[in-house]
């Protein structure tokens, strides 16, 4: 088991956003989490990564057998949890390559491995660049500074390829992408998929799932997973719209 979320409840500024999430992710699986705006999808991603603005009020999250919620964000990353951000930040003056070398060596240190020197890192990076069709020029530019929306998202997937996480969480990585960029991003994820890792793909639209075929689809609404199924659920949702799910819930029980 890679990730096990049990009855997770989270609030921000006293307002409950997640109202009891249950989700189990095994190695080799791809899970899609879908839902309308405001359903709590991105909150889930942020809480998994350890963003401080949220208060966990109940439940538990186990990641590779460890209590994830007890770890600070950098430890979670070093343990192998990767979040592809919806809005990647810019860091002026720090090249993507330099940033990733620092990050990779932190993770290697955590795993008791020797740090890679500049030469070894470079050849390792080149390998990963091919995987996601990233331009050398992009890795030399300051991290995300002046990148187009598509470049930023590609850069997230590139970082994920390089850091080789056990669990990749993609937070609306498809939003704002044209179809070509979408293909590149999805293609990257497909190539990274192994029997030892897993992905949670958060998305608003079904179209990403034309390229990344999930093993499971979960529909989130109002802080809960209200329906789970296989990829057909996503197609049905696409056809009928979110109202199809939510109108049942709005009628009093």
């Amino acid at each position: 088991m890679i990730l096990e979320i049990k009855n997770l409840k989270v609030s921000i500024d006293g307002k409950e956003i997640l109202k009891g999430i249950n989700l189990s992710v095994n190695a080799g699986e791809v899970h899609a989490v879908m839902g309308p705006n405001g359903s709590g999808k991105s909150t889930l991603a942020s809480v998994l990564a350890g963003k401080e603005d949220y208060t966990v009020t109940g439940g538990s999250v186990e990641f590779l057998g460890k209590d994830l919620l007890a770890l600070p964000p950098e430890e979670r990353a070093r343990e192998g949890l990767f979040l592809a951000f919806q809005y990647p930040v810019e860091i002026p003056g720090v090249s993507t390559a330099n940033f990733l070398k620092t990050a990779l060596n932190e993770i290697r240190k955590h795993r008791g491995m020797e740090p890679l020197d500049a030469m070894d890192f470079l050849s390792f990076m080149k390998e990963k660049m091919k995987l996601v069709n990233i331009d050398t020029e992009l890795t030399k530019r300051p991290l995300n500074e002046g990148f187009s929306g598509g470049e930023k998202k590609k850069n997230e997937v590139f970082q994920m390829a390089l850091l080789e996480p056990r669990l990749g969480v993609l937070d609306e990585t498809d939003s704002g992408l044209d179809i070509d960029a979408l293909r590149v991003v999805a293609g990257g994820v497909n190539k990274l998929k192994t029997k030892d890792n897993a992905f949670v793909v958060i998305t608003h639209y079904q179209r990403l799932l034309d390229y990344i075929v999930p093993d499971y689809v979960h529909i989130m609404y109002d802080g809960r997973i209200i329906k789970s199924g296989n990829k057909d659920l996503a197609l049905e949702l696409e056809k009928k719209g979110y109202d199809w799910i939510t109108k049942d819930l709005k009628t009093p029980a």
Partner: protein
Amino acid sequence: MDQTGRILENVTQGEYKYGFVSDIEAETAPKGLNEETVRFISRKKNEPSWLLEWRLKAYRHWLTMEMPHWQNVSFPPIDYQDAFYYAAPKPKKKLNSMNEVDPELRATFEKLGISLEEQKRLSGVAVDAVLDSVSIATTFRSKLAELGIIFCSFSEAVKEHPDLVKKYLGTVVPYTDNYFAALNSAVFSDGSFCYIPKGVRCPMELSTYFRINTANTGQFERTLLIAEEDAYVSYLEGCTAPMRDENQLHAAVVELVALGNNAHIKYSTVQNWYPGDRNGKGGIYNFVTKRGICIGKRSKISWTQVETGSAITWKYPGCILKGDDSVGEFYSVAVTNNRQQADTGTKMIHIGKNTRSTIISKGISAGHSNNSYRGLVKISAKAEKARNFSQCDSLLMGDQCGAHTFPYLEVKNKSATVEHEATTSKISDDQIFYCKQRGLSGEDAANLIVNGYCKEVFNQLPMEFAVEAQKLLSVTLEGSVG
């Protein structure tokens, strides 16, 4: 406190690592300042009478001046009578070679990472080490002399190259220039002198390392660099001082003369004087006048400074661009933390045609510190098609510190182009979180972000110095980032 605040708190609580005091017996002038102090210093150094006269004129001029108060810093009045103006390590005997340098002295510099043993040095850096008032040792002299390069202490230059010193001393920074330049001219004790003859490209970095050791001593050194036609030199300067509760005054003067056509002087400073403790007790008052003049056509002077130390830093390394097509550059990183104050920047005076200047200033304020950029760009009437580009960025760490920008522009020629850009930014929680999500600790994240911010300036430093500057930056900001 938010996340960044906490990290900042951590990063800015680093200890000053150079605060030790060496047990070296010093010979000092009687405390206080009067004409007799000036004569005492001159006598100690066996100076020619012209120099004593020059000092006395400076001293008398200083008496007529008043301490300036326009800078954006505050400190109690300085009692100039309550300090020593000359302190020299007592020589056991006259030195004939480096091997005879007092072991304790040698150990002091070793501890600072400055090796005086030139044979053992692999890196090509010639060092002039100045402790309190006196130059201790200059390395690689004979090798440089083969190329006709003079690199020695100021005192030696006065004895061995009096004509050069007499001709250029005070030509770029006259003793009438300002209060501290006048004071320095009266009581300066030592410093470095460097002359690069025509057509010579100095093959190694020249470096002076300044160290204040004795208590209650002011350090007043003078540096004079002259580059002839087609000559090039890269010069580095580093400074540290012991931790003491009382403030100590450092009032140096640096004069650069890019004399001939195409002469190029690159002057880099990593200033790490003791900044005082967290509550602002003690620390060095760093009141320095640095200026260069580009006389030759297409000559160039570049100032690069990384200012991390001192309780108060007050300096404006400037360039007078007299020769046509000459170039002035100023790259600065000024970091203030705790109660430190800095009012620093540059002056670019365009006189010649097609003269160009670039100003890149990066201020970083943390803790309760105050950091001001103050810069003058002056285009005189004859400076046809002169160009200036200024970029002044401020980075705030935490919400208790201040950043200020005071640009002054005087343009008297219509064909000139002057550009000024300024930004103020903060390290955001989102940036820190992003880095953490990739496995970096909060502190490493902050260092990475700050170093990225300073990159344009660090790129100007010689490799070894750039590494040292990065380390210094993280030590200075230790305890202020997360």
